[in-house]
């Protein structure tokens, strides 16, 4: 089958990797260059926070998140970077004056999923054993199931993998005007396919109703004095700050959440909030170097839940909001099962039958 995919961000790539495994030919269109950084998936910290994200999300995120956690190792193995997947658990803490936030957090989780009972309460000794650098805190939660995907490594490696794959044609810097049933109109020209996927994120705004952008700002810090090996969140009455480790003492610090489609550089207010919070977590961040300040917009629907829209020869996936890496593999799997795979059952079924017949 020849399949067209509009949007080579996180969803477009996860789709492509899935469809390649089924033996299809893919043509990708994206407004950015293959190694560009416009996609929200390039800005993401890549947290697989099945529980922690539940605090302000619907319970459906929990099942999809858990499903994704089982799917990521295979996807990352497919492009040769199994090390981009880390599942060593995550830490949730707060300053002593904000311990009330920890109570609220755990109460909310417990009201949403029964599995929240698996979350462990750590005292100073417990924190010391897992993350000695955070031992100034005397209370934290440990969520063993959580982890992260090195989002930037995934984006970079998947670019290389897909660009060199014989079954992939990638139209870079290509403006998609519309995505219709079985066709993609780009730069004024219309190409037809056996099936098309619209995975353009905010780029699909003219064709997906009620899709909005939510501004987010993150720092990349190089902090040789800091050794934190697990995603760590600090709860605060007004901000929710996370620290997500990358190799070589790099940390992604995020993220603001502002209801605006503004992609202009980070504001002073946001930078003060993020940096003072991270410094209060670990004084070793004082001498960190700011490697990058990034602003982007998350595509979100009104209910902040993913959208899967199916019609004849067309599937639209959008609105992964702040849960891109947490949800993409599961949402893509679900979208394929409901639409494309129903119309075109996997080829291996035929070949198995042939083998049996032979």
């Amino acid at each position: 089958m020849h399949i067209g995919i509009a949007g080579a961000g996180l969803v477009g790539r996860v789709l492509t990797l899935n469809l390649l495994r089924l033996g299809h030919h893919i043509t990708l269109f994206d407004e950015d260059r293959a190694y560009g950084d416009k996609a929200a998936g390039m800005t993401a910290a890549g947290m697989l926070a099945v529980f922690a994200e539940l605090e302000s999300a619907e319970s459906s995120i929990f099942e999809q998140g858990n499903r994704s956690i089982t799917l990521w190792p295979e996807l990352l193995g497919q492009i040769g970077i199994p090390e981009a997947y880390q599942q060593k658990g995550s830490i949730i803490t707060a300053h002593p004056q904000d311990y009330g936030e920890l109570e609220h957090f755990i109460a909310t989780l417990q009201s949403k999923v029964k599995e929240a009972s698996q979350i462990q309460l750590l005292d100073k000794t417990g924190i010391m054993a897992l993350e000695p650098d955070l031992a100034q805190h005397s209370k934290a939660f440990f969520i063993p199931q959580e982890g992260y995907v090195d989002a930037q490594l995934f984006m970079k490696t998947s670019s290389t993998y897909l660009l060199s794959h014989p079954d992939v044609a990638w139209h870079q810097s290509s403006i998609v005007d519309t995505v219709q049933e079985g066709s993609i109109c780009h730069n004024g020209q219309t190409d037809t396919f056996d099936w098309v996927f619209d995975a353009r994120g905010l780029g699909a705004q003219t064709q997906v109703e009620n899709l909005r952008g939510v501004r987010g700002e993150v720092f990349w810090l190089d902090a040789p004095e800091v050794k934190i090996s697990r995603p760590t969140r600090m709860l605060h009455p007004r901000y929710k700050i996370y620290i997500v480790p990358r190799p070589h003492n790099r940390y992604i610090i995020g993220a603001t959440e502002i209801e605006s489609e503004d992609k202009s550089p980070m504001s002073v207010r946001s930078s003060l909030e993020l940096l003072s919070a991270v410094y209060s977590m670990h004084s070793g961040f004082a001498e960190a170097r700011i490697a990058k300040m990034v602003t982007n917009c998350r595509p979100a629907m009104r209910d902040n839940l993913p959208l899967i829209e199916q019609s004849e020869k067309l599937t639209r996936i959008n609105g992964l909001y702040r849960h891109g890496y947490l949800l993409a593999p599961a949402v893509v799997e679900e979208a394929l099962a409901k639409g494309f795979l129903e119309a075109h059952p996997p080829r291996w079924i035929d070949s198995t039958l042939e083998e049996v017949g032979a």
Partner: protein
Amino acid sequence: MQVLETKNTTWQIGGKMLSSRLLIGSALYPSPATMEDAIKISGAQIVTVSLRRQSAGQGARNPFWDIIKSLSIEVLPNTAGSHSAKEAITTARMAREVFGTNWIKLEVIGDQYNLQPDPFETVKAAEVLINEGFEVFPYTTDDLVVAKRLADVGCKILMPWGSMIGSGKGLMNPDNLTAIRKQFPELKLIIDAGIGKPSHATQAMELGYDGVLLNSAIALAQDPVRMADAFKRAVEAGRLGYEAGVMQKREFASPSTPTVGTPFWHQFA
């Protein structure tokens, strides 16, 4: 069945006739869809929206504001995040442009952590804004003298706190709130901040306050939509109770020895 109607089914604030006495915030909901549902079920006819935090990049589209506007209820923009009269005034002017209203919830913060209002800067800003034709809804503490100063500069509405923003502790000092009510029978008084549960809202209305403004108590509830419904009823109950006239408390002596089982005529023997 006879349906009881409140004596005063509509009331007036800032030049508008309204029937709901619940003012609702638009922050902290799990999603805009939940916010919409919660606001609808609350019956609130005034929604507050924060301008400062969301205003980076004036040119950018702001779908969230479009959602707020599409609710077709009165929008009360606030100056949350302002730390001086000057900042608050700038934000108020911006809000007038964005939402086409002269209403402004004046909020000048004096303490970064507690978000306690700065009464000095609030009075200063209120005076300037009233002169510019704004209908000022000032967020203040339960201090009677601050309330007087705000009334002196022309505020027709006062919004004293129940307790600190987001604390959910309810009415920390009902006596002060009652004193403000008694002092200013002609002003519209709204309890703003500190409400944690529906009974707090009822209590505020029983004190004779004209309305209650809250956000976290609904948005952070495990089921914001149900909680919005609960607050709708709580505010109505409190108002109805106030209008019905609460019975006078009786100063019975509290016995120092247990009197359970004592026939009542013996108690006075």
